[in-house]
């Protein structure tokens, strides 16, 4: 029988699972979010009860006994939604509690390498998104940016845009995961989104979109066309909401 840990999909749930595995010396084959779990008869299931106290203990333990970087790393790995993320995080933390602060120097150790690989993917997508999300001004004066991302990166965008677009109300909408990053000119927060509402564009919106498209076309050097390079930097999967690629 393969032992699977099944948690509620939250970061706290995952930390609780780590706590249970650590203190009960279990080696689950997989630590999987409820929504991604598919059952078969070879699996022994263990449902994790998300427990804030346990989660906090793990959280603090990481910061005190390993490092803040390690916490960032597992957070990013978690956001990758990779099916093995939970298991990799458990292995990384077990190793981290053994070797402490220097864990991230073990670059060629699989327990560390796996986490770094996932974290780097998420981090790259986040950086790309900082540049390529596009706000549209709606008739109610809200700047609205729909995104369709590979990883769960929307929640990593709040700080950046709240500091930058400090004087405008905005929403970044993760269309696939149905939640949004909201900013109301004083603070940002995350909330579910009801997509039934109508999105009327501001009367000036299309004017600026046209100007931007014209700029995009005009700044291209036609003697040096290299569309392969273009999609290398800006993969096609992100073009859907890019004003200039329509």
């Amino acid at each position, binding site marked *: 029988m393969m032992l699977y840990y099944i948690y509620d999909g939250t970061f706290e749930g995952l930390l609780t699972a780590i706590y249970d595995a650590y203190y009960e010396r279990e080696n689950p084959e997989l630590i999987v979010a409820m929504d991604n779990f598919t059952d078969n008869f070879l699996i022994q299931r263990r449902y994790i009860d998300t427990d804030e106290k346990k989660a906090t203990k793990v959280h603090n333990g990481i910061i005190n006994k390993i490092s803040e970087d390690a916490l960032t790393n597992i957070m*990013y790995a978690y956001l990758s939604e990779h099916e093995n993320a939970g298991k990799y995080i458990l292995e990384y933390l077990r190793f981290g509690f053994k070797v402490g602060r220097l864990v991230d120097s073990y670059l060629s150790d699989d327990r560390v390498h796996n986490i770094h690989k996932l974290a780097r993917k998420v981090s*790259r997508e986040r950086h790309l998104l900082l540049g390529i999300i596009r706000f549209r001004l709606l008739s109610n004066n809200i700047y609205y940016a729909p995104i369709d991302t590979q990883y769960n990166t929307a929640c990593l965008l709040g700080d950046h845009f709240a500091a930058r677009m400090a004087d405008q109300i905005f929403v970044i909408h993760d269309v696939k995961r149905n939640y949004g990053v909201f900013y109301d000119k004083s603070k940002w927060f995350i909330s579910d989104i009801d997509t039934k509402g109508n999105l009327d564009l501001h009367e000036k919106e299309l004017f600026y979109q046209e100007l931007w498209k014209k700029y995009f076309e005009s700044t291209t050097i036609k003697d040096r066309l290299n569309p392969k*390079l273009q999609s290398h930097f800006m993969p096609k999967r992100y073009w859907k909401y890019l004003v200039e690629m329509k």
Partner: protein
Amino acid sequence: MELIDKIKILADSAKYDVSCSSSGSDRKNKKGGLGNAAPSGICHSWTPDGRCISLLKVLFTNHCIYDCKYCVNRSSNDIPRASFTPEELVNLTINFYRRNYIEGLFLSSAVWVSPDYTMELLLKSVKKLREEVNFNGYIHLKAIPGANSALIEEAGKYVDRMSVNIELPSSESLKLLAPQKTKKSITEPMGLIKSKIIENQEERHRFKNAPYFVPGGQSTQLIIGASRDNDLKILRLSESLYKNYNLKRVYYSAYIPVSDHPSLPSISNPPLLREHRLYQADWLLRYYGFNSNEILDEKNPNFDELLDPKSDWALRNIDKFPVEVNKADYYMLLRVPGIGVKSAQRILQARKVSILDFDDLKKLGVVLKRAKYFITCKGRYFQDRNFVNNPPMIRNHLLLEDKIKINEDAEQLSFFQLYPQIMNPIEKISRITGEL
């Protein structure tokens, strides 16, 4: 004229300026304001030529009193002309910025009426952005050669980066192709900006709230292939610009024929490979601890077309190799072909806790294609021992492995120039290099 037609004309005229960097500045947003600068820089889109768009790059006007032969905006050229007003520019910048199309503004201009007249218009535009609409995003402003130094100095208070384009790498080429420009009209504003930046850095060191002066530093651009200057001459010029003027970047732009004047070379294709080699060498100067004499000399004043400058250097200095990866210091690691800043730093980090072999290097992301001829791990050489100290044999193999690549050269060529910002969660390493 409609705004959209102005954009068409004035973006088209500005696009041969290669700089797109938005890095190096840490300007913060002000209360109730719009925008800030990201020290690492951010790319916002990529055009079909594979270049990144970071800033809204436009000319204020393409009306020009000069007639520089290599330039598309030369007065004798019959092209549509346009000018923005400062209000239009401000409006365009903040509306693009609010939609996250851009990281800020890169404002340049042809010389309209006179250098002072033009500089005043540029100054008026950036001042409006900062003071009237509280815009704190990135601004790169071109200083107009020949403009009054008081104007240039004042503009520096509002912008993140300034640049004066040298364009032609020697006085002789200037005389031939841009007779109305002089070396002095270029170096004077560069010197002024440099000394003001140093002054400001000291001031900001003492008073944290002292106003900024060009916090992102200054840069310039050289055109490659419009004149007969060789690579050595260009590289030495860059080196002295980095040393004597503290430039952040020198950009190289392969000359794209925009005119068939008899003083200009007739070329069918822009010299992209040469441009690429110059960028590689430029990186060796800035981040790898090389000096120009190690890369080129009077006997070999031009780059090897087939081999990158670092491999070329390594083969000429084969007595220094192979180096032991577990012992070599940072700067020696950086001299190994195929090992870049990131790889070298990862090696140092991993060495703290373990002794590395070739498999470890692969996991660290070190590309062994080139490096394997020049290193040992735990005393072991990866290749057949016959390669040790055998430059012709290594060279042949490097070229052989490159051959496949060269056919896709367009991709390879531009890659270095446009090297993207790749972040890890800690975002430490990338800070060193910044976005181009």
